[in-house]
């Protein structure tokens, strides 16, 4: 149930490749996140899975059935749009019931299902209202209830949290994840927010310019980025990259600490760090500065946990270090990760 397989899918708009030879297969019941900057093709890919966009090349199957040319209604998928796409002229009840009506279900059966879906998202009391009377969070729940009411094999979400204000977003994120775990439906979720992706995803598909850069668990993506794009896109502030001739040396800001604080049984690399600017953010401090000779000075960021209270001043130089095991090497030309040690 809920397996989506994508082989060699491409989408061309005129001469632009919005999606470029993508191969992907979901695991049953997983929460898969498509992550990337705007224009990377993630939404186009999602729309092709839904069937509202036609692939130029490639094939797609859902639960073993080839769906590449099938219209959306034959794919047993449900989708929530960024705008929620609630039918403005129908009540919440009718909105949720809509997918069932179009399948010709009896009135009583429909009512039961609608109430079940509404209860799942705690919107039972809103059933008689019209969309324009609802808040953003309430509309989102109605959209989710409508999607779930058919018990689809795959659940597609296109940045459903981006229209909510920040506070609501975090609690909505949590609820969404819990709900998905409970119901266990395979979910494909599109977002450009890497924090959201890391928090929600069982696996993350990082995309850029129509291509998949890496597929992996949040930990894999974070600790072992496949290329410089993933390394700098995921993580805020992004991974530091130092030019070393033919390779780029990468390390995360939180691994770049005052030399005394770095524990490196396998070895440590030390750099004199000239601090230019500090930001106190409460739980942590961000220290901006340069390493290297004056002529080759490179800008790096260090992330100090709040517990590390070493006083630092702009304009001064301090010995900072990175443990060898935290270093990553990337080929300068291709940007790809070069495996020299570390898990493959």
């Amino acid at each position, binding site marked *: 149930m809920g397996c989506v397989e994508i082989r060699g899918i491409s989408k061309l708009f005129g001469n632009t490749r919005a999606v470029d030879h993508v191969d992907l297969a979901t695991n049953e019941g997983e929460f898969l996140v498509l992550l990337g900057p705007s224009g990377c093709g993630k939404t186009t890919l999602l729309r092709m899975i*839904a*069937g*509202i966009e036609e692939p130029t090349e490639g094939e797609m199957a859902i639960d073993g059935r080839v769906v590449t040319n099938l*219209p*959306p*209604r034959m794919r047993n*998928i*449900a*989708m929530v*749009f960024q*705008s929620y*796409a609630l*039918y*403005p*002229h129908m009540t919440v009840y009718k909105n949720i019931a*809509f*997918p069932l009506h*179009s*399948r010709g279900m009896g009135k009583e059966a429909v009512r039961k299902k609608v109430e079940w879906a509404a209860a799942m998202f705690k919107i039972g009391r809103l059933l008689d209202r019209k969309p324009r009377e609802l808040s953003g969070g309430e509309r989102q729940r109605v959209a989710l209830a*409508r999607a779930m009411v*058919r018990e689809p094999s795959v659940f597609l979400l296109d940045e459903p949290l981006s229209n909510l204000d920040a506070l609501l977003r975090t609690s909505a994120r949590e609820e969404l994840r819990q709900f998905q775990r409970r119901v266990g439906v395979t979910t494909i979720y599109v977002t450009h927010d890497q924090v959201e992706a890391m928090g929600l995803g069982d696996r993350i598909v990082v995309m850029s310019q129509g291509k998949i850069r890496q597929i992996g668990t949040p930990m894999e993506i974070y600790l072992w980025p496949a290329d410089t794009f993933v390394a700098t896109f995921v993580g805020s502030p992004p991974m530091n990259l130092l030019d070393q001739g033919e390779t780029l040396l990468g390390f995360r800001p939180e691994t770049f600490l005052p030399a005394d604080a770095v524990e490196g049984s396998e070895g440590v690399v030390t750099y004199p760090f000239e601090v230019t600017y500090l930001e106190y953010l409460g739980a942590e401090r961000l220290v901006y500065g340069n390493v290297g000779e004056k002529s080759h000075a490179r800008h790096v960021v260090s992330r100090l946990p709040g517990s590390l209270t070493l006083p630092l001043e702009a304009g001064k130089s301090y010995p900072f270090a990175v443990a060898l095991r935290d270093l990553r090497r990337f080929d300068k030309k291709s940007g790809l990760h070069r495996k020299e040690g570390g898990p493959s």
Partner: protein
Amino acid sequence: MPNVRKLASRGGLYTLLGLFVFFSAFPFYWMVIATFKSDHDLFSPLNNPFLFNEPATLDHLKLLLFDTHYLTYLWNTLAVGLVVVVITLAVAVPAAYALARWARGWGEMLGIGIFLTYLVPPTILFIPLSRFTSFLGLQESLWSLILVYPTFTIPFCTWLLMGFFKTIPKDIEEQAMIDGLSRFGAMWKVVLPLSISGVLTVVVFAFTLSMHEFIYALTFISVSVKKTVSIGVPEELVRGDVFQWGPLMAGALIASLPVAVVYTYFLDRFVAGFTMGAVK
């Protein structure tokens, strides 16, 4: 003192508006007066034309309604208008929807192209079209008008509806398709209910444009009982060389006012069509 300036500018505004209202509306004011003024009063050049110097009369109305074909004209106009509305809807709604939803790029171009045919004047087309209608045996028949009027209602209304359908977010239709409808079903069950006001606008304009039309009616129809109000009133309410001013004004007034009221109500939509998206 600010108050005096405000008062003066207020006064200036009202004066300006007053002048414009006067300019636009006073021919219609006269129509109202002339409808009820007795002939004797009307045709005495020394009498003050702005007032009723002699008691008002209903004679003109009686003459108009009972002694002329006026009611027939109204009926003809109504009949033609309604059929033209139906034809326009049947042709323009699907075309506008298809152009708005599909065909990125060429859809827009085609839509504009269709709109521009609205600008082809009847006076270029009426000679060939008159041959056309007599070839079909439709001369002197209201069907000739019904056949030809869509040449201006369809281009304009298609364009108007195109703009209108574009305001309905694509999301909603796509959602409906995901929820189980075919494209056609989505159109029928979701888009059309949301387009009621657009459809209504088309009905109003197709009807009023038909009602206003003069040139084709003048060209195709000369038999009195087949005329529409638009040509019937100016052409027929003249006995010999004499204008029956009273009934003439009454006839003009009765046919003008209801149309004007409805048209005014929908005027903003009309303008939206003309400004072609130049104004958001």
